[in-house]
């Protein structure tokens, strides 16, 4: 039979071994943790240093004098392996921030490194992340011969790929992208903001195509996908679009009619005043409010009496917009507004007084 004292000794011995074991394990874990952290910091510092070097060379290419630019170009062209990947990544990140000769320099550098073929390979990849990267890179390189390839990518099953492609087409600046982009908007309303951004980025070259789409499409259909076209023509302040936009005020689609009113206001064309004044009588509140806003933006007192009639109507959105429009017409408009008993007239004049204008 074992003595109780022997059991106590055994227990103490076991506890001591356990304690020492834990202590050793803790020290080992601590050492491993410190080493891992030190290595991680070391690698991060190395990566940051390498990125800084690449960035300095990019700056030399973009902005340096001839000798500096040549040195930077040679350093970037000599990069191989991981360094080459880093160079391409950093140059692609820099491209959206530059234009003119500086941008052309960097695009030339990427082309010389074979970035076009790599971007095309990425676009054809099975990975959606790679397809996004490929679309972005093709857009940044601005090679318009690949517009049809990107247009095909607008039908990609992944939303993010379609979104990046829309922006890439905008960056390319080729008006051939106008119709496919507008068509995409019809099927994918979540992309409306991106579409407007991309179409606006195409710039004035896109305006004739946008006008011709509006003219063709307005004769039939429900005008579902035309809002971005109207909005962008307004953003581009495209004066030749005034007639077609004025026609759009009568569209059966209230959203498109409202977008046309907003665009006419942005263009600021006095020749649109008769159509906009007529639109103040439209049955749809958003069209009346849009027309009132546009008349305020154009700033002609011709429509003042019609705006005053609208201030007194019951629909708050319309009344408020008309009151604001009269304020924008200047002293004459403000005098007319003072005769209205609408609470929105009082509100508009009070706000104007706070802003420092005359009430």
């Amino acid at each position, binding site marked *: 039979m074992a003595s109780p004292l022997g059991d106590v000794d055994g227990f103490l011995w076991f506890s001591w071994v356990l304690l020492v074991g834990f202590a050793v394990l803790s020290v080992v874990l601590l050492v491993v943790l410190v080493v891992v952290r030190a290595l991680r910091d070391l690698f991060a510092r190395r990566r940051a240093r390498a990125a800084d070097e690449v*960035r300095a060379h990019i*700056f030399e290419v973009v902005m340096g004098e001839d000798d500096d630019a040549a040195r930077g170009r040679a350093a970037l062209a000599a990069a191989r392996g991981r360094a080459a990947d880093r160079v391409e990544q950093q140059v692609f*990140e820099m491209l959206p*921030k*530059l234009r*003119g000769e*500086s941008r052309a320099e960097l695009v030339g550098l990427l082309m010389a490194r074979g970035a076009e073929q790599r971007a095309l390979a990425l676009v054809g990849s099975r990975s959606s992340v790679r397809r996004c990267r490929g679309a972005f890179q093709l857009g940044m390189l601005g090679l318009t011969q690949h517009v049809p390839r990107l247009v095909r990518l607008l039908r990609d099953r992944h939303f993010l790929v379609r979104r990046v492609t829309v922006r890439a087409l905008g960056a390319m600046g080729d008006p051939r992208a106008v119709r496919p982009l507008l068509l995409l908007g019809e099927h994918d309303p979540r992309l409306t903001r991106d579409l407007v951004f991309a179409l606006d980025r195409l710039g004035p070259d896109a305006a004739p195509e946008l006008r011709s789409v509006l003219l063709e499409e307005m004769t039939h259909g429900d005008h579902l996908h035309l809002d971005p076209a109207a909005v962008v023509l307004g*953003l581009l302040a495209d004066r030749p679009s005034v007639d077609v936009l004025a026609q759009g005020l009568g569209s059966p689609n209230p959203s498109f009619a409202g977008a046309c009113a907003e665009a006419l206001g942005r263009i600021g064309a006095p020749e649109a005043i008769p159509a906009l004044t007529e639109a103040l009588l439209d049955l749809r509140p958003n069209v009346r409010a849009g027309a009132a806003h546009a008349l305020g933006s154009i700033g002609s007192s011709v429509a003042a009496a019609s705006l005053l009639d609208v201030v007194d109507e019951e629909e708050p959105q319309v009344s408020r917009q008309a009151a604001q429009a009269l304020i924008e017409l200047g002293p004459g408009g403000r005098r007319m507004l003072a005769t209205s008993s609408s609470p929105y007239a009082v509100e508009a004049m009070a706000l104007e007084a706070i802003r420092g204008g005359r009430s």
Partner: protein
Amino acid sequence: MARIVIADDDADIRELVVFKLRHGGHDVVPVGDGAAAVEACSAEKPDLVILDVMMPGMSGLDAARALRQDASMDGLPIIMLTARAQESDIEQGFEAGADDYIVKPFSPRELASRVSAVLARSR
């Protein structure tokens, strides 16, 4: 040589501008937001300030208004550097007190020329 404050929250843009202007012989003070730009202008008394419009905290427009209200900064030229290129945005910039407006993406050469022109006008 002029002393120039540049405020932009995008580090790449800030460094591009700093690199280009230092290359042109200017003394450049980079900061990351509008409030820091106003502080830097008080401390450094620059000859010119370049402000991005969209910045966290105090925007470039607010910074421009604050600088215009400060009598000690009277006549300080302000250039707005921004991605917002609509006519109304440009109008807002000028109303806030900007002397010139550069739209992003920008050309570093154009920036240097605009800086020289604004500095020449202010002297």
